[in-house]
């Protein structure tokens, strides 16, 4: 299991469209992936769970991955939310 703390740099935060892209990205990996914000942990492969957190730009989140491709998954997802565009 690997964990990483990341700051959300995505300008809009995880609004509906960016959240959908994030979930799509997460679903490419076979590892179990979770995202935690303020002690609330949700499955990163589920769009509704992710959106229920209302992740805004500048907030600190923790990405947790567990499985055969955990490292790649963490890297790809961290890169996505740290993308300022």
């Amino acid at each position, binding site marked *: 299991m690997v964990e990483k703390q990341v700051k959300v740099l995505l300008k809009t935060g995880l609004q509906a469209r960016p959240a959908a892209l994030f979930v799509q990205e997460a679903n490419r990996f076979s590892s179990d992936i979770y995202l935690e914000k303020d002690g*609330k942990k949700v499955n990163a492969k589920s769009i509704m769970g992710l959106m229920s957190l209302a992740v805004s730009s500048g907030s600190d989140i923790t990405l947790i991955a567990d499985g055969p491709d955990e490292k790649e998954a963490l890297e790809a997802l961290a890169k996505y939310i740290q993308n300022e565009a």
Partner: protein
Amino acid sequence: MPKVRTQDLIEKFQLELISGAEGVHRPITTSDLSRPGIEMAGYFAYYPAERIQLLGKTELSFFEKLNPREKKIRMEKLCTDITPGIIVSRGLDVPQELIEASERHSVPVMRSTMKTTRLSSRLTNFLESKLAPTTAVHGVLVDVYGVGVLITGKSGVGKSETALELVKRGHRLVADDCVEIRQEDEGVLVGSAPELIEHLLEIRGLGIINMMTLFGAGAVRTHKRISLVVDLELWDPNKQYDRLGLEEEKVKIIDTEVTRLTIPVRPGRNLAVIIEVAAMNFRLKRMGVNAAEEFSARLTDAIEDGEHDYE
């Protein structure tokens, strides 16, 4: 972030704020209350300062009998840095000494018109539910024939689709994808939806749909006690699935054990119907009718009879 503050009590119970307004943001960390009668008499060795303090007729009438010096000292000791608030019940007059001490230490003093016992039980209930341990799970919660069924399973296994069909069959959706669970009492798990995604369901290919506007108010509920967990998983030919239903598998959520059924998913298996029947069978078992056990007993009898015939 604290779950409850004194401010919440003021709003919920429409308390009148008398003094110590600076302290209304103090966190409340325990659902226990304290009626500081013995402290009024001067014994502070075990004073539970972190609790909400409740002053009723008994405490205040005793307080009236004290001399002015004692009154001042005891009220001073009652107001500590960690006391979340002091509530006077029955709309009684708040002693001047208490108002002065509370202003100095910014402890909110509030007044309610309710009777002490009534207020105390309602406060306890409110605090217990607010301070209950919580968790969030990935799954869908549906009320099926009055049984709260939590459907879990990997992403894409068909949880939401099953929930949709259950709603079409007249059952009620509580939460999709992310279920917030509170353990309100020993053995009582209550699930609800995060506010932002209440009534919503996500179906691959359709997107987000609103179950309440589509199916009406009867198709949703805000919260439901969880009695049964149904775990959906892709059919694994190497795994043994329960064929008899004699054993009950349990899963632990927070500190509570809940019955779990593992249902394999394969084309041609109508999951909504299977879950409906699982819920009905669960109710039946709780009412004392266990088909599997009854059949097993009959089979055992039949085999024993057969053995006698050969003797």
